[in-house]
């Protein structure tokens, strides 16, 4: 009682407004400093997700359906966040890449299956990045061979400098350039009321048919791709992130998902406003068409397309090399010099050079390859997602960081929707008259 009386009469010290403000400022500044150190993998993977194939898909979607599928892109943002956030937890807790986690937890059969899937899908997607980069620079009369050679040299220099941190900061710079689409959208003066009215109400322009299924799948495939799961988890490990860094990793991924939706939406708005009804099959074609309307707009789109392809290429090639290194036991960190990790860098360059060579094949149907690769990637995605969900539900592995019920419901819903959509597309491809 006496103690309680003593406590109740003791006055707490009160700080003035300025000291309290300074205290909060120091807390926020410290949080931002830690965030700046930890941020990177989430933003890079999400922005790189808007790769050359992605920009092509958004441009073609806008030209074909106007603002009609904008709502779908907005929904894909949170979906991508929920998937990628799981890789942050998995990488920070297990300190292992995704490929190694699958081998160790599920054994050889599923391990080799997943690794083969990843390598094939990654290589095909890498081809589309080179398609985008060569198409973008050909608008400025730069021949494809020169683009492939220069890009390969830049990519080599980025990884050979021997530090993950430096590679990450350069990649973040390119992520910043990717936001060039945003001013581009303001140049075309879209009607905001029309964008909101037509774009944000869920509906399927033109009804259910083969074409809409294809575009829905291509848009999913470019927003959530198997390589992203492997890349972000390996990047989290290579960066040395810990369990205590998970909250920062989540914010990093969230910011990245906002950027990805913004860029996707603005590309769609540009082509929907200015090129509606025009047969546009590629972002490069859209750039050229836009050059005729507004030189700056076309230039922004071309620069953005090159940047998108470059970002995608540097991430995808690393995703495969990291996965190989994890399984084959090679040194596989960007912090290793080339002499310390010859196979890691070797696999990186082999993927790069072979993918770049495809683009130089005369007469190759590059635009069709770009769109189909997105669709193939999304078809293979459920397999990668199922393993991710199973790993995140392993209490022995994840401890207190395992998935809760809401996360499981969202993830399983994403898997089911993708499988359904893939099935609908396959059925519509086999029986085109069924959905007319």
């Amino acid at each position: 009682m006496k103690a309680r009386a003593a406590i109740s009469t003791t006055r707490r010290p009160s700080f003035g407004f300025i000291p309290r403000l300074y205290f909060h400022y120091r807390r926020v500044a410290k949080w931002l400093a830690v965030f700046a150190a930890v941020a990177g993998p989430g933003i890079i993977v999400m922005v790189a997700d808007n790769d050359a194939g992605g920009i092509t898909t958004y441009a073609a979607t806008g030209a074909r359906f106007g603002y009609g599928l904008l709502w779908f892109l907005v929904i894909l943002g949170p979906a991508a966040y929920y998937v990628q956030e799981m890789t942050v937890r998995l990488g920070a807790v297990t300190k292992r890449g995704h490929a190694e986690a699958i081998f160790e937890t599920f054994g050889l059969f599923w391990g080799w299956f997943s690794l083969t899937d990843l390598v094939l899908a990654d290589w095909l997607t890498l081809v589309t990045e080179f398609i985008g980069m060569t198409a973008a620079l050909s608008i400025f009369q730069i021949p494809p061979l020169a683009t492939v050679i220069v890009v390969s040299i830049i990519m080599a220099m980025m990884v050979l400098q021997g530090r993950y941190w430096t590679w990450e900061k350069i990649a973040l710079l390119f992520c910043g350039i990717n936001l060039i689409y945003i001013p581009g959208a303001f140049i075309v003066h879209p009607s905001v009321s029309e964008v909101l009215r037509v774009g944000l109400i869920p509906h399927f322009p033109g009804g259910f048919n083969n074409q809409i299924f294809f575009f829905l799948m291509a848009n999913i495939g470019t927003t959530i791709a198997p390589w992203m799961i492997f890349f972000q988890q390996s990047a989290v490990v290579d960066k040395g992130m810990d369990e205590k860094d998970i909250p920062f990793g989540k914010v990093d991924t969230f910011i990245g998902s906002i950027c990805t939706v913004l860029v996707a939406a603005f590309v769609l708005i540009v082509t929907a406003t200015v090129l509606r009804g025009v047969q546009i099959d590629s972002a490069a074609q859209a750039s050229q068409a836009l050059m005729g309307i507004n030189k700056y707009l076309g230039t922004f789109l071309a620069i953005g397309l090159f940047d998108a392809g470059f970002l995608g290429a540097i991430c995808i090639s690393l995703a495969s090399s990291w996965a190989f290194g994890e399984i084959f036991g090679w040194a596989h960190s960007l912090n290793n010099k080339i002499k310390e990790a010859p196979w890691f860098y070797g696999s990186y360059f082999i993927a790069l050079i072979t993918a770049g060579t495809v683009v130089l094949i005369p007469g190759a149907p590059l635009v069709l390859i770009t769109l189909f690769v997105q669709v193939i990637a999304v078809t293979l995605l459920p397999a990668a997602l199922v393993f991710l969900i199973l790993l995140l539900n392993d209490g022995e592995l994840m401890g207190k960081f395992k998935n809760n019920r809401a996360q499981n419901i969202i993830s399983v819903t994403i898997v089911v929707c993708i499988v359904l959509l893939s099935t609908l597309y396959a059925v519509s491809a086999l029986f085109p008259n069924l959905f007319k």
Partner: protein
Amino acid sequence: MREYFKRRFSKIREINRKYATPRAKMTKGVAFALLMLRLYLILLVGILIIKFITMVNK
């Protein structure tokens, strides 16, 4: 050449030995469901490839 491939395959054998025993025990039902899902997705990819080839040949 023989020695080269022997070295490469010995690495793969080493990996197979390392991961021979999975940590998680999957029930037969789950393993079967996963396998069916994988085969189903490969079938869908096959249909896509056929569609792609048809479009290229048009």
